[in-house]
């Protein structure tokens, strides 16, 4: 047993760290760190730099642009990416639809879509949730009826993150209404420019436009845009969700936030000194750091176990990472809000809906929006209560 990284792993860490810090534009990384909204172009710029290096889709099969890295290298890569405040390669492209097409798509689909997914030439969004299908995703109602070489799709998707930027949406649709829940679902790729697709913004609790409703009204989708077999879409969705949970603990992100909080605390006046002189505040920060250290090791244990398990099925231990990781992300934003104190009140430069995006920005402006926005992390990706159900069943056998 040796919990230290090998010299090779340490060298790898230095290599990726240097690249992120020297090649990804500082202004983009600052926006991520400060919790300011990114423009579409920021995501595209950052991902194309990564892609040119071969690092946008590292977890894909090597044949489609992935890297032959060990689980530990993958962990280090993501950890350093988040600590450098580099925008994550677009989740929907790189961690969701890309791996599904690579695993289950036709050769034509792979050739057509994968390079554009990796380079963010096409922006993808996720059409899973519906107003009546949240945690109970398999109860989705969006219908796809076969008419010759097309499906005609009717229904509504919701919580479509960054759908306002999207060129394509990957959807779970019901192709066999007679079948039991999970059995009658297919996985369709839909061009957002198709007639009948409309997008309505949902303004979230933090005052931002991050998610959308997507309405599908008699949208004609060529059959060639179905991934895999008809009525087998649920299997592909499960495969996708297993990918989604990898790295869901976001330890690097929380680390970056805590380090920033510690730096800002030294600059934030309180009484005759700064917030960093307040032993109570420091103890609260230390309390979160301790849990984060524990979670980091828990994550490394899961990573180490990956080498010997079936990667296509979710590791129930990853549900532990989801629960604790989301709680710690939230705890960090609570500390940031506490640190900002009364100066968190002004909407300031973080309010993109009401203000010019170039308005002067103070770090306190983003404290409340970050806190509010981060409430989502215990809800999405399978709510923490669903994760507890998963653990109760899969690990505790209750």
């Amino acid at each position, binding site marked *: 047993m040796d919990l230290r990284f090998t010299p090779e792993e340490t060298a790898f860490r230095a290599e990726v760290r240097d690249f992120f810090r020297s090649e990804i534009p500082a202004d983009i990384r600052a926006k991520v760190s400060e919790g300011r909204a990114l423009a579409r172009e920021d995501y595209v710029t950052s991902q194309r730099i990564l892609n040119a290096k071969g690092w946008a889709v590292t977890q894909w099969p090597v044949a489609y642009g992935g890297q032959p890295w060990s689980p530990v290298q993958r962990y280090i890569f993501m950890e350093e990416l988040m600590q450098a405040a580099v925008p994550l390669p677009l989740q929907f492209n790189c961690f969701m639809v890309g791996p599904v097409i690579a695993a289950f798509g036709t050769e034509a689909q792979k050739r057509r879509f994968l390079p554009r997914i990796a380079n963010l030439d096409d922006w993808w969004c996720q059409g899973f949730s519906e107003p009546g299908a949240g945690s109970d995703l398999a109860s989705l109602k969006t219908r796809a009826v076969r008419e010759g070489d097309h499906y005609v799709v009717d229904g509504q998707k919701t919580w479509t993150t960054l759908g306002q930027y999207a060129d394509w949406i990957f959807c779970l649709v019901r192709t066999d209404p007679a079948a039991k829940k999970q059995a009658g679902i297919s996985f369709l790729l839909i061009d957002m420019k198709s007639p009948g697709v409309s997008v309505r913004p949902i303004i979230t609790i933090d005052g931002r436009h991050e998610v959308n409703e997507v309405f599908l009204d008699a949208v004609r989708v060529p059959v060639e845009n179905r991934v895999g077999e008809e009525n087998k879409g649920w299997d592909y969705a499960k495969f996708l969700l297993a990918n989604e949970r990898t790295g869901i603990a976001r330890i690097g992100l929380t680390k970056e936030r805590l380090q920033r909080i510690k730096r800002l605390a030294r600059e934030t006046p309180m009484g005759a000194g700064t917030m960093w002189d307040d032993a109570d505040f420091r103890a609260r920060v230390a309390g979160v750091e301790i849990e984060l250290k*524990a979670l980091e090791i828990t994550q490394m244990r899961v990573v180490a176990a990956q080498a010997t398990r079936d990667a296509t099925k979710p590791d129930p231990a990853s549900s532990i990472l989801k629960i604790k990781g989301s709680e710690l992300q939230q705890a960090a934003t609570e500390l940031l809000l506490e640190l900002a104190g009364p100066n968190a009140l002004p909407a300031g430069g973080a309010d993109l809906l009401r203000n010019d995006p170039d308005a002067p920005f103070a770090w306190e402006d983003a404290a409340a929006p970050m806190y509010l926005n981060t409430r989502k992390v215990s809800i999405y990706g399978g709510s923490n209560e669903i994760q507890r159900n998963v653990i109760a069943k899969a690990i505790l056998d209750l």
Partner: protein
Amino acid sequence: MDFDLTSEQRLLKDSVARWAADTYASLDRVEASRSEPLGFSEAHWAELAELGLLGLPFSEADGGFGGGPVETMVVMEALGRALAPEPYLASVILGGAALRLAGDAAQRARLIPQLAGGSLRLAFAHGERQARYDLEDVATTARPEAGGYVLDGAKGVVLNADAAGLLVVSARTAGGRREGAGISLFLVPTDTPGLTLRPYPTQDGGRAADVILRGVRVPSEALLGPADGALPIIEQVIDGAIAAVAAEAVGLMEALQDLTVAYLKTRKQFGTAIGGFQALQHRAVDMLVALEQARSMELYATMMVEAEAEARGPALSAAKVQINRSARFVGQQAVQLHGGIGMTQEYLGAHQFRRLTMIEILFGDTAHHLRRVTRAGGLLGAA
């Protein structure tokens, strides 16, 4: 990075687990050992010697088995899981570490074979009632005289002192009560004139004693390690003990978690196993999360226990904070999920909870160790 045990470590783990399972198959067996005069069975102690566990952390050159932190972790986890009452922590971990870290060649050569063979036990007489968890707070004095020292003072809650032949006693050879410098360690046989033990049972079913020292004369060779400079050694001994109880606590929590989940599957109310109720399922999951977080910090403690003091201190404190929090949560929820039976002496889980509660207090509570991490500036450098 490698979380696997070597084949030798796996053999060790298996052999301790087998011994523990055979020896303490039920709470009755634990209680039978505890009811012996010293709170454990001498026969079992001899078995631990035969298994090589009593000499485990000492170098082979000194007559030990050359085990490191991982080996200690493996043993403590197994002993914790079994609720074994033997004074392994007091004698091998605490006393043994003081001897290992501070003893000169002659002291090690004389004592370690006796310890490994089971004929001698140690206890670590450092804490004093007024000191709480402050390691530098030592009022006991050692006055030099021709050919030796004279010790006066009182040590409080010395674990398993009544089972020890030899105490490692800290005393001031210089400086004021709360000064870091000026503390020395001494090897003091328990039958030395002027030394009085007041032994008592502890809340977790173990034993401890207060040690009164009145004009206790020891020869110069009793000095263990540098005169006036023992504090760094004491800190290292306690950090080692924290890593050890972290492992013991993980073993206990694992056992308690298993016991609780098994109970949820068998206990029927409203015509069904209560494990079918989601409120209870989620509580059991939260216990598992707390256990896994504790296990991670057990590994962290094991990894950091031999690091330089500057890195070791905050790391071990961080580990103890997590262990304490997890131990409290797992213990309390286990009792809650068991309902009335969890409140009784006849139930194994209640004893595991008691031991976990005392582990929380041993070597620094949550507030103490959180302060230590906070004073060090946390675990992450500020960006």
